[in-house]
């Protein structure tokens, strides 16, 4: 049985950033955007799925058929980490500074994530708290506020902001740390309103919250270090 909704989501994630996000700096790209980012996406997906299965149902780790059902869950942050690690390895192989390539990829990556979130409209509908101004998810009767669509809009805003700051001279590592911070904050805040079973925070909420704090600390530390380095040069 083909999951048409998921297929459409993947097509949106791959095609929309490639069409609408302006070409990234050629100095950071040995090949095209999809060629360079495709490997990171695939590695991220595999690691994210393995992690989800290891956490939820370790008995299925040896069953290929179970591992392949990505609709059953992919852990986001381990996937992001693996994708970034792959990108660093690939950049070193291409003799390009990894930070330069990662910074150039932040805007397309944020737009790709925004596309996935917004494509809930073609998957099962966008769940959220009951609201008179919301949309009606597939098969449900009550309208719900589309939290994922708002999160997608925030991610596009984050992509525009980080790209502008990059163009105005923000150092590469700061751009990467800022993008991760903004993404983790968006996911963390969105998780407050996304429906979940029972009381307490979901795993997505907890991990995004921890990543948001850690990425903010890293961003501040890099910024202080860069300013000090600039100050030493000026003196």
């Amino acid at each position, binding site marked *: 049985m083909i999951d048409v909704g998921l297929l459409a989501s993947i*097509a949106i994630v791959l*095609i929309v950033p490639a069409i609408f996000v302006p070409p990234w700096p050629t100095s950071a790209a040995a090949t095209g955007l999809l060629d360079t980012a495709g490997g990171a996406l695939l590695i991220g997906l595999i690691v994210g799925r393995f992690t989800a299965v290891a956490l939820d*149902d370790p008995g299925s780790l040896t069953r290929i058929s179970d591992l392949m*059902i990505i609709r059953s869950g992919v852990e986001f942050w381990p996937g992001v980490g693996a994708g970034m690690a792959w990108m660093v390895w690939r950049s070193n192989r291409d003799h390009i500074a990894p930070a330069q390539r990662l910074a150039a990829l932040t805007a397309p990556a944020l737009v790709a994530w925004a596309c996935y979130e917004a494509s809930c409209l073609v998957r099962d509908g966008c769940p959220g708290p*009951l609201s008179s101004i919301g949309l009606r998810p597939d*098969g449900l009767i009550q309208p719900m506020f589309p939290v994922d669509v708002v999160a997608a809009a925030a991610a596009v805003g984050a992509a525009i902001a980080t790209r502008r700051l990059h163009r105005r001279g923000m150092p590469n590592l700061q751009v990467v740390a800022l993008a991760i911070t903004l993404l983790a904050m968006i996911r963390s805040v969105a998780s407050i309103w996304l429906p979940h079973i029972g009381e307490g925070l979901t795993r997505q909420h907890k991990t995004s919250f921890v990543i948001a704090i850690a990425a903010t600390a890293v961003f501040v530390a890099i910024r202080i270090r860069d300013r000090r380095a600039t100050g030493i040069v000026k003196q």
Partner: protein
Amino acid sequence: MEAEPPGRRRRTKLFAAAALLVIVGFAVTRPANNTSFRAAGEPVALPASGRLTDLSADQFEGVLVGLRGTPVIVNIWASWCSPCRTETPLLERTWRAHGDEVMIIGVASKDVAARSRDFMDEFDVTFPNVFDSSGEIRARLGLRGFPTTYVFGADGTLRTTIVGGLTEQRLAAVLEDLRG
């Protein structure tokens, strides 16, 4: 690496945009799930939790009739079904957290009873389950694939059918919808 000529790049983008429109159009216009099933017959007592009782389709419909007044989530599963392994713990959590407001009934179908019982033991399933040895229940509900979840309102109408694995968000949204 040679740069792609602007005309060719434009054609590639147009082709990609057209492909995207076709895929999204297909996803948006896919047919809605069948919601015409309505249980009928004499009420039948709900089988005990934690056991796997073999029921005919008529008896199963009777169970649904007997539960009128309470929203019911019916999940059709099998021990060999991969997405069932992910959603069963989710359904169990839902049963433990919201069992006072919604009834959950598992239907093991197209399976060997002993394997279904092992599956229930593996995931510590405590919500009521029935065994569809004849395949009548899945036929009457119009099953298209494993797993499938049917959501009935308190008045007995089939509100939605979810074909494929459930996610926590989707299941929680269904609960919100039933409350609203």
